[in-house]
């Protein structure tokens, strides 16, 4: 609970920064921060495995990929980059705020008293489930990832310069 109370505001702040920061790289790094904080939150909640996976995948792969892409696609003049605050904030807020309000309202209204819950996430059990109950899903994800790997490599390849 303590960790939750400490981490939640941090996560929100970091996420806010990721959304609002003008420089894309800052936003990307803040996303990494957000995600790693979320990973810590998972660990604090007892899901160490998920937390560590979150670290590995989100921080180690996704976030890095994003900042990497940001670097590659840097525009020629950096002034343009600085000017890129979020645009049409009004409509954005108009969409987002009712949603947020609804969500919070619903949480507030419908939530029963939380039971003490279980904090045990046995990795062995995860493994068993993955390769028994969820084996087809694992297979599907494996195929998906392979396809993604090949596809991404194909997409991102420099178009071959034919004479």
């Amino acid at each position, binding site marked *: 609970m303590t960790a939750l109370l400490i981490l939640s505001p941090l996560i929100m702040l970091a996420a806010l920064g990721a959304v609002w920061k003008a420089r894309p790289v800052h936003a990307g790094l803040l996303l990494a921060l957000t995600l790693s904080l979320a990973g810590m939150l998972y660990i604090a909640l007892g899901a160490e495995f998920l937390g560590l996976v979150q670290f590995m995948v989100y921080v180690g792969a996704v976030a890095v990929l994003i900042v990497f892409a940001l670097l590659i696609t840097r525009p020629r003049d950096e002034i343009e980059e600085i000017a890129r605050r979020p645009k049409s904030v009004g*409509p954005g807020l108009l969409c987002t705020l009712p949603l947020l309000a609804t969500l919070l309202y619903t949480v507030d209204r419908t939530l029963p008293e939380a039971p003490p819950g279980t904090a045990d996430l046995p990795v062995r059990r995860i493994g068993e489930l993955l390769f028994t109950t969820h084996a087809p899903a694992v297979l599907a994800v494996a195929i998906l990832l392979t396809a993604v790997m090949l596809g991404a490599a194909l997409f991102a390849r420099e178009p071959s310069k034919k004479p």
Partner: protein
Amino acid sequence: MAEALQPHLPTLLWAIPLLPLLAATAVAFLPDARGRIASKLAIGALGVSCVLALLATACTLTPGVDKPFRLTTSATWFTFGESALKVGVLLDPMSAAMIAMVTFVALWIFIYSTGYMADEKRFGRFFGFLSLFCGAMLMVVLANSLLLLFIAWELVGLASYLLIGFYFEKPSAAAAAQKAFITTRVGDMAFFLGMIWLYRQTGTLLFYDGGNGLLESAALASLAGTTTLGGLTVSAAAALLLLVGAMGKSGQVPLHTWLPDAMEGPTPVSALIHAATMVAAGVFMVARVHPIFANGDGVTTALTATAWIGGITALYAACVAVAQYDFKRILAYSTVSQLGFMMVALGTGGVGAAMFHLIAHAFFKALLFLSAGSVIHGCHGEQDIRKMGGLSKPLRRTFLAYSIGMMALAGFPFLFSGFWSKEAILHSAEIWPGGKGPFALAVAAALLTAFYMTRQALLVFFGKPRRPGVEHPHESPGVILVPLYVLAAGAVLLSLIATPFWPWFEKWIDGEAARFHGGAFGEHGAIGLLILSLALVTVGVGAGWAVYRRVSDDSGAPDPLSGKLGPLWRLLENAMGFDALYQKAIIGPLAMLASLIDAIERGILVPVMAAGETVLKAFGRLTGASDERGLNAGFDGACSGLKRRAAGASGAQTGRIQSYLRTIGLGVAVLLVLYLWL
């Protein structure tokens, strides 16, 4: 020796036909340039087969046993449904005599061929085909199953086809090959039907199978017990069908026409296939299934038919042979005639006589053909006897061998196997209770045989060389001559084992021990028959001598007889017009029928189909048009109106995803607000 061999006999028996077949297969893969190797391979395989065959024959000579030696093996070839089809080999005196003869004669003909065909481009191929033939022929004689016999029978036909068509560049050879195959196939189809009929009736195709075989009592009783159309027993009907098969193969009238044409093949082929062995397969087959033919009371329909057909063939072919000019054609017709003799013997119950004549004929007819080959070889390929004459000097050694064969065929007394075998046949025909017709026909044929052989001998070897004719005839090399003498010796020596004094051969075939019997001539009027034979030979040879003693030197001069016989001569010259008859009565109508069917196909069926198609097409056009004019037009109009109106509305589409998303989001937000708060 024979005892030591006994346990291995089944294997050895299979090996006898398979060795030449394997050699043929191997030769098939050799290139043409390796002809010498091919010939050595073929001769080697056949030599081993020959040794094995003689050993096997030796095994059947067990004296003192009062029932025929019979060794059978069988194995399941395939199963269909629950039924198994068995094939096997059979060794009894009949097949033993045949394998010994086939391998021995064939071996010498092989050797002869290495000389005769030496200049041939496709030398190796030739030996491959010969090997194939020998293997198949041996399979025919060894088969213990009608099916296996039929299979080998057809393979023999294939080999014959290939060898007749060996000079396929010649259209006549190609046509002769096709004719041979198709004519024999007519018989084969009857054989096929007969075989299937027997199989359906008895459930087996094995000849001897420990009491369950086709030729054993149970099956025979079943065959005789069922009658079919025309009041014939199944036995008779099937036997007649088999007889048709035998007629095709053995060139009996009216399926004989292919055999003279088959002389288009190389001479060794004529000797081996179309004189000694294959054409005798029909006779052998009838002899093999003789129990079916003779299945019934007394003189059965099948036997009668066999005897009459044999007699007619014998006389017919002898007549035709008188009026031929081609060296080999004369011999071919003589073969047909002699096969007729064998059929007479079979029809009149003389299986032993028929088999003996078969073996003896194989020797002396092979000898005659080989001599003919030697003559043709020496005359640079000339085959017309009118252009020869006086060859006894330049071709003295050939002439010697030829004269032995000629005398055997003509039935010169005592020293020659032909005399004794013909004697036995006439004897069998004479005592036949079914009538004297076949006997009379055979006697007439025997007379003519002596006549036309004398004619041939005189025209070819005596007198002076005719002009225009053969220039510089020369003697053949030793490799050609040695086989001649070997066969000549055989033709003479065979006469020792089947005289009435010591009828060893016939008894052996029947499975009895032979005794020396000095008084044989005293029985059944045999002495009279002997005198008749002597008279026939004398008259025949004398008449020949009288007519052809002095023939003009001009090779263009007509035959002395042609003037006297007039139109009859021309009829004989054309072999009584069988070919023309078939052309008009069968081939022509068949071709017309085929064209008619083709015309119906193209003229009626296809137009019907096309008409149906047109109807469909018209329907399609109609619906298409209605779609085009009616439905589509209306739809297009509606669409274009809609398009115009839509153009105005498309301004809202900015192409910016986020503006779309925002719109969606606003919508969702409004919905949420409505849903939750109102």
